[in-house]
C-alpha cells in the first residue's frame, strides 16, 4: 500500500509537469507559435481584421448570425450583404481551393471536421463565389 501510495504521488508530479508543458505550449500557441504537437485545423483565414466581426466573436457566434440573416432574407426579403452566407463564401473560399467545402484545407469544412460538427449549409447553398459558381464544373456527388 505504501509503495503504491508513493507511486501515485510520483504519478501526480509527472502529470503536473505534463500539464505545465501543455499550458506552456498553449500560451506559446496563443503567441503565434509556428509548430505545436496539438493538431489544429489546417485552415487559413483571409487577412486578420478584414472580417465583418471580430475573429473571436465569429468563432463562437457565426452560426447565430447566419440563422438570423437567413430568416430575414427568406421571409422578409432583406438581402443586406454584411452577414450573408454568400458574403462569407466570397471571402473565405480562398485561393487554394476556391471553395469552402470539399477538403480539410477548405475554410468551413476544415474547421467543422476538426470540431466534428456537421456542416449541412452547402447541401443546398453554393460553396464557391458567384464568379466561379457557374464556370467551375461541379464535382461528382457534390459537397459532403
Amino acid at each position, binding site marked *: 500500500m505504501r509503495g503504491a501510495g508513493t507511486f501515485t504521488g510520483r504519478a501526480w508530479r509527472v502529470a503536473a509537469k505534463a500539464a505545465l508543458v501543455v499550458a506552456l505550449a498553449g500560451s506559446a500557441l496563443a503567441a503565434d507559435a509556428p509548430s505545436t504537437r496539438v493538431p489544429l485545423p489546417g485552415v487559413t483565414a483571409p487577412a486578420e481584421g478584414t472580417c465583418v466581426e471580430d475573429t473571436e466573436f465569429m468563432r463562437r457566434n457565426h452560426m447565430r448570425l447566419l440563422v438570423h440573416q*437567413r430568416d*430575414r432574407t*427568406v*421571409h*422578409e*426579403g*432583406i*438581402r*443586406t450583404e454584411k452577414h450573408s452566407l*454568400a458574403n462569407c*463564401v466570397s471571402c473565405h473560399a480562398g485561393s487554394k481551393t476556391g471553395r469552402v467545402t470539399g477538403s480539410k484545407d477548405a475554410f468551413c469544412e476544415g474547421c467543422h471536421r476538426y470540431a466534428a460538427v456537421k456542416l449541412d449549409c452547402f*447541401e*443546398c*447553398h*453554393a460553396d464557391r*463565389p*458567384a464568379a466561379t*459558381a*457557374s464556370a467551375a*464544373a*461541379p*464535382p461528382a*456527388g*457534390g459537397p459532403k
Partner: protein
Amino acid sequence: MSRVDQGRRQILAWGAAMAGVALAPGVTLFDLAHGRAPTEPASSKVRWGMLVDLNKCASDCDACVSACDKENGLPTEKTATSAQWIRKVELKDMRGQVRSLPMMCQHCAEPPCVDVCPTGASFKRADGIVLVDRHTCIGCRYCMMACPYKARSFVHEPTTGQRPEVPRGKGCVESCTLCVHRIDRGGIPACVEACAATGRQAILFGNLNDPESEIAKRVASYATTAVRADLRLDPGVRYVGL
C-alpha cells in the same frame, strides 16, 4: 461567334434595354420604380403579379423556360423527375383552336400549398410571393398534392452547381419564386426579361396593388382570366386571350 450572331446579340441587348423605356405616354412594359431600401422588409402595400398575353405567346417559343432554368441553376438536361418551375402548356378547345401558355406558380392570394403545409415552410411573403423556406421544408410533398396548377416540384437527386442566390437541394419542394432575389434588388423576373428580349413581350410584370401601374390598368380594363377561377384562389398570374 459569327458576325451575324454578334449583330443579333446586339439587337437583343437593345431590345432588353428598350423594354424599360416608355412604349407610349403612360404605357411602359413594366414598372421600374419598385425599389425599396435594402434594410426595408417586403411590404403588403405591394402585390407582385404577372399578366400573360397569349395572343403574343408563340407555341414554338420556350425562351421563358430556358431563362428560368439558367437563372435558377436548374438542370438543363431534363429527366422524368427533374424540377420544373415553369412549363409551356398547349390547350386545344372544342373548335380545335390551340393556345400555348406558360404555366408556373400562380402566387395565389389564398394559396392552398400554404394551408396544408405541416411545418410552415410553405408561406406567402408580405408582397404576395409564395415561397418555400427550405430550412423548414421536410419534403412531405403535401403542397404538391394541394396545388391545382401542378406548379411545384420535388428535388429527388443531389444538386450541384447551385447559383449563390438560388440555393436548392435534395429533399425539398420548390417552385417559381418570381425571381425573388431579383425583385428584392429592384429587378424583374428572368422569364419576363427573356420574353421581352425575343420581341414578343407577352409577359407583363408589376404591382397589382398600385392602380397607376401598367399591369393594374390592364387588369382593370381588359378581360383577363385566372386559371381555375372557380377555386377562388385569386392568383397573381393572369392571362389574356385564354
